């Protein structure tokens, strides 16, 4: 079983449109399990229309709650808190659940034992079925922490099912950025596909995404989305990838069919199979899939 993660660094470069097309194209050959690891802003479901089979609460972390009755107002909790989460008004100390990191330092330091930790319901994760295969996805409630843990949770569930039922591929639609949820999404991947945009920001953030995959020793390929938007930018990405020895697996031209497919709630390869973007996505999938299944992936 192989694991492919789709990343970008910069948001909005087209990760989810690529992932949805891959889900469709993979269904023709190897059976894939789909994972939406962008738990902050999960959009893959808008293109794959999953039917939810199981819904589970995700506990996430805990937050400190100060008992106003037994609190003597010494303020030690406020002094030890490094997250600026304890506030005093008119002698009453309160912990701000949004700022609280859940470290419990105040619980251990309170001389009156007036603080306890309260579990938070941070979101849900789902096991679903789509016409392209099983899907694991999640929804983190706004303002919640632990998105990395939730990403790890949905990926674990996908891997377990993949091993139980002998699936060849786990396809992970990753979050933007390079921080905590991205690191959880990259962990254990056999290949990362970075969807880059030929813009000043897109090129800059692609480099940071590639540095992240190198750091975690996950081999990477790049695809350039909206490649004809700015040719010099596209050339710059190709030159950078050549220097770094990263294969450019494909280029997707700017194509309004991609947005139309989003409005219709379909992968573009289903919505308009002959559209220029769909042709490019099929070529891209072939290259990525053959690298995954047959390629000599370099974990150096």
């Amino acid at each position, binding site marked *: 079983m192989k694991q492919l993660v789709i990343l*970008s*660094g*910069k*948001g*909005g*470069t087209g990760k*989810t449109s690529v992932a949805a097309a891959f889900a469709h194209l993979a269904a023709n050959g190897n059976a894939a399990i789909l994972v939406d690891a962008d738990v*902050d*802003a999960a*959009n893959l479901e*808008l293109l794959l229309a999953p039917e939810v089979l199981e819904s589970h609460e995700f506990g996430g*972390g*805990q937050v400190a709650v100060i008992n106003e009755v037994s609190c003597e107002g010494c303020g030690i909790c406020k002094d*030890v808190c*490094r*997250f600026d989460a304890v506030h005093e008004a008119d002698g009453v100390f309160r912990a701000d659940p*949004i700022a609280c*990191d859940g*470290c*419990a*330092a105040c619980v*251990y*330091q309170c001389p009156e034992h007036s603080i306890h930790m309260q579990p938070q319901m941070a979101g849900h994760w789902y096991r679903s079925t789509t016409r392209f295969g099983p899907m694991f996805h999640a929804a*983190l409630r*706004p*303002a*919640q*922490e632990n*998105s*990395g843990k939730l990403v790890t949770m949905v990926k674990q569930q996908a891997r377990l099912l993949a091993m139980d039922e002998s699936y060849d591929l786990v396809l992970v639609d990753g*979050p*933007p*950025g*390079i*921080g*905590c*949820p*991205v*690191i959880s999404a990259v962990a254990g991947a056999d290949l990362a596909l970075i969807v880059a*945009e*030929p*813009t*000043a*920001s*897109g090129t*800059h*953030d692609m480099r*940071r995404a590639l*540095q*992240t995959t190198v*750091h975690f020793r996950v081999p990477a390929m790049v695809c350039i989305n909206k490649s004809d*938007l*700015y040719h*010099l*930018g596209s050339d710059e990405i190709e030159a950078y990838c050549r220097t770094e020895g990263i294969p450019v697996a494909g280029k997707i031209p700017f194509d*309004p069919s991609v*947005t139309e497919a*989003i*409005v219709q*709630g379909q992968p573009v390869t289903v919505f308009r199979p002959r559209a220029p973007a769909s042709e490019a996505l099929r070529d891209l999938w072939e290259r990525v899939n053959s690298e995954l299944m047959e390629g000599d992936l370099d974990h150096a």
Partner: protein
Amino acid sequence: MVIAVASGKGGTGKTTVATSLALALAESGRQVAYLDCDVEAPNAHLFLRPALDNYKQVDLLIPEVDSDVCTGRGVCAEACQFHAIVTLGGKTLVFPELCHGCGSCTLVCPEKAITEIPKSLGHLESGRVNGGMFFAHGVLDIGEPMAVPVISQLKDWQSFPQSTISIVDSPPGASCPVVESLRGADYVLLITEPTPFGLHDLRLAVQLTQELNIPAGVIVNRDGIGDDGVDIYCRESNVPILMRVPFDRELGANLAQGKTLVAVAPEYKQRFTDLYSHIKAILDDSGSRG
């Protein structure tokens, strides 16, 4: 005043709006400070081209255990909520990548065997744009999961006179790095695009601003692509649409080269100063009533 520019979905044009709003206000003679809080993917410097001449390292304080003093009782491991310090066979081990730097283990250790040592998370840089507008951004180290301390240190790094307008360029999403970026903002501009993706993530962003109790308005970028879902949602939930930036492929190609919206289309200078006046009126009005 602090105006944060945020969005649920990435790539909707946060930096495009934030940089041009800041430039328009600076050109109109106002004191402006720009804080790029998207420390995982900081891009505003590519458009504003500040002369960065100030640098600060951002560290997290992580525990170091003196094995000569440690008796291996595991009090620290019990207190740590993140499994970043554990006791195995009488030995105490630290896992720096799991540590949140809360200091709880140091405080609870009965033998005072723990000292705290700095571990790099990233760095901050600041400078001026064309000798005027203040600019600062944070850059998270590669492979480092924790963006929040870099953002909070960036926001606390330098202080500004009351009259300064701070423009906070937030990361995408709706979880902890966004919360940290938005903390203390007077108003949030939510940038979206008129597609089902844009709408889905706008709803989350609106919920977040409501939870944080910060007033928010919407800017629809790439107006004309997609559908009318965002318009309907905004109308039904009483979220004002303050501006629309029509989709224009030529404009997109110019932004791709690192040009700003106000440089490519100077009529936006007036639109952005008007937008600021509008936000100020909304806040003054709610302030006088509240």
